[in-house]
């Protein structure tokens, strides 16, 4: 077998071409397909079953309108083939009216099992227990992290955290109440960490990890002294500056942290392994072939920007449970070259898309 990066890139491309065809065949299958796509197909001027023969053919689909994900029936995106299975519904923040949602059978488990393979055992020991310091409620992340932990033989301890309430407080200018709520969440984490639960690994949002680390420092302890050896964290607030601050001042050299980038649609993109030469630049790679990320021209969403150039993040979801051809993320970033571990395009410097950044409330937990 070939081992050069070029060969790996070619193989990855072939895999995603194959995946695109297979997923389109399933979602547009007359009997087993997804109700939403079967209805949509009536308005297309092409036949997805015969005219999609590779990944690039997905550009024949119009851009996906994410507002279609609001409201019911929530299983209309799920192929009928899976309608007799046990199903979950996961929601996004949903701060303005009906939230966007996704109906799932096994996708979240598969995504996080795949992600689990990228975590180094020396920092995320098998059998260790986890702390999930993130949103609870109808969110995929809550169950996904728990499944990841179970996959690795541990028990996951969770906190109560309702981000919708925090958004309401911030929008009403009740900053002190929002801080009190954050302190309430950290109180729960502190209780878990000081109750002899052998917690060594955790998921946290950057804000909560920072708050937890500072609380521990105030109590003459630290994340390391609390027993944590490995953390994965995600969100647009995971900037290079925060990454550096976190490694140098919050965690110390013995605690491993890896950035992730994800959402309910995509699953979980992995961060390129830390390399001092990168100067804390954070590069994400989508979990191909189940999801693909492109960085596209701001004025033409069908056109990739050149490597190192800036564009908007475009997402494709290609799983047996969800098909999303071309969804424009709320983020922008720079297109990155394939990596040995992830031989396909990545994206770095993710930040809120400049045209909508001003109207978005980010970093609520």
């Amino acid at each position, binding site marked *: 077998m070939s081992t050069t990066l070029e060969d790996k890139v070619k193989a990855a491309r072939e895999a995603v071409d194959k995946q695109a065809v297979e997923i389109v065949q399933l979602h547009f299958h007359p009997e087993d397909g997804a109700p939403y796509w079967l209805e949509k197909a009536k308005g297309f001027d092409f036949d997805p079953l015969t005219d999609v023969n590779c990944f690039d053919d997905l550009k024949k689909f119009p851009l996906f309108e994410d507002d279609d994900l609001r409201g019911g029936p929530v299983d209309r995106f799920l192929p009928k083939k899976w309608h007799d299975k046990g199903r979950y519904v996961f929601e996004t923040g949903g701060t303005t009216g009906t939230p966007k949602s996704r109906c799932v059978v096994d996708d979240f488990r598969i995504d996080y099992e795949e992600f689990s393979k990228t975590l180094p055992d020396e920092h995320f020991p098998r059998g260790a227990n986890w702390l999930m310091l993130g949103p609870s409620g109808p969110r995929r992340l809550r169950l996904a992290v728990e499944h990841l932990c179970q996959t690795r033989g541990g028990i996951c301890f969770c906190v109560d955290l309702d981000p919708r309430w925090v958004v309401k407080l911030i929008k009403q200018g009740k900053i002190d109440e929002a801080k009190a709520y954050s302190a309430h969440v950290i109180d729960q984490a502190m209780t878990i960490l000081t109750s002899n639960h052998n917690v060594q690994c955790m998921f946290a949002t950057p804000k909560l990890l920072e708050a937890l680390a*500072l609380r521990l420092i105030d109590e003459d302890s630290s994340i390391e002294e609390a027993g944590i050896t490995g953390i994965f964290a995600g969100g647009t607030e995971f900037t290079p500056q925060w990454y550096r601050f976190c490694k140098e001042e919050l965690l110390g050299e013995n605690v491993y942290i890896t950035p992730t980038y994800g959402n309910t649609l995509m699953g979980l993109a992995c961060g390129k392994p830390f390399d001092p030469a990168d100067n804390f630049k954070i590069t994400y790679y989508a979990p191909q072939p189940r999801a693909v990320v492109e960085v596209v021209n701001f004025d033409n969403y069908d056109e990739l920007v050149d490597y190192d150039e800036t564009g908007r993040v475009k997402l494709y979801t290609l799983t047996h449970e969800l098909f999303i051809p071309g969804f424009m993320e709320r983020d922008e970033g720079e297109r990155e070259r394939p990596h040995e571990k992830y031989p396909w395009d990545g994206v770095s410097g993710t930040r809120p898309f400049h045209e909508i950044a001003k109207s978005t409330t980010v970093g609520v937990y």
Partner: protein
Amino acid sequence: MLEIPVIRWGKPYESMDQSPVVHFETGEELAKVHQANGGIIKMDMRKAKKARDLLRQHSIEDLIGMCEKAADYYVNDELPMGNGTQTPDEFCRIQSASTGLPEHMCKFNMGKSAYVMKNMGKVLDALTRGLPLDVFSKGYGEEGRGINISYQATTNACGWVLPSNSPGVHTLWLPVIPLQIGLVLKPGSSEPWTPYRMFEAMVKAGIPREAFCLYPGPHECGSAIMETCERSTIFGGQATVDQHAGNPKVAAHGPGYSKIVIGEDKIEDWEQYIDLMVDSLYVNSGRSCISASGIWVPKYGAEIADAIAKKLGTVQPKPMTDPDSGLAAFTMKGAAEAMNNMIDEGCKSAAVTDVTAKYRDGERLIQEERCDFLLPTVLHVTDPDDAMANTEFMFPFGSVVECPQDKFLKKCGYTLVCTAITDDEDFQRDLIDATNVDRLNIGEVRTYQIHWMQPHEGNIIDFLFRNRAFQTEPPPATEV
């Protein structure tokens, strides 16, 4: 390229994030400013006590002496600025280039800051009402009448979230260091110049650099400062003031709605006061909270508005280097247009007339490629309840409002500076008693002519120190 680091208790810190400061007319990048993140501020503030301990190794009198020296360095010396240096002239040029304030106004503000530093001893003597200064170092002492007193510092470090567009405000934080309190500044994105230059001048004068933090950065830095400093000050709009109302930890400085009121006893002589009114509206391009935005009169409103408009209506933008340049530029895209639209909307009221329109050559709003200007505007407002009677914009703008004298204090709302032209003792008494007026001038004082020996929007001593009970022995026996 000039690079300006974050300063963390005196130590330069180079961030992964840098933000450019650009020339408002050409777009040229003037400097790269390293950006702090909220976490480092929260981390640093846990060490704030060290700053106060270090400053208390010097007496307040010594620190005042250092401030006097720093005033000279600030005005005269070439001082470090990030990875380079800066002469006083370079300072004025670059401040003008990034803020849109004409150079002569930058120089004026520089002199104002230096004056306060040079006179720090007198300023503190006035603000402390002549108390022995070691009371503030030790936390207790004697007032001089055999009475024990105690002033306890409310914080080890005082935070300041500074604006981008108004270099005049920097005088307000200068007393913090001689009062032996650590100083934490978040400079405005276009105006890092004054905080960094003042920091270097103070350090050159012998003040320990470990007493200073300078955190340029995004909004989260302001939030982190206000969260972690037991006392902080923020500058912003009315929404900012409202958000922090009632919070003893935060002093929010917003619009001033400063006014001149002429009493019924003086209104027949209104022509004598036109220059005072024009200057109060126009000086410093009307950009300050102490610039007048209202002239309230019992009658002759139309005539007074016309006389002011005649003087201001012909003012035009000039190059920033022109010593006669009276208008500052709006460097934030869309800001001037939004204000202009608000004024146009307000002028639809039957009670409002834009008196300057007939003297102005062209439209009020001048839009250039990278900046905008608003030409001086004087409104005549016949109804004191009209929305335009009590509003403020950051350019030479004023409403001449007709309002009976006995209704003025009920209608004028919050007023930062009120200059009252009246000898009517009853009206003077009402003005003195009015709690909606902050700084009161009775007499011919231009609204911007503020005396530095007076408190401004509250006394900083009361903000930074708590007068509490302190005893070293039981009280004398009480006879019953």
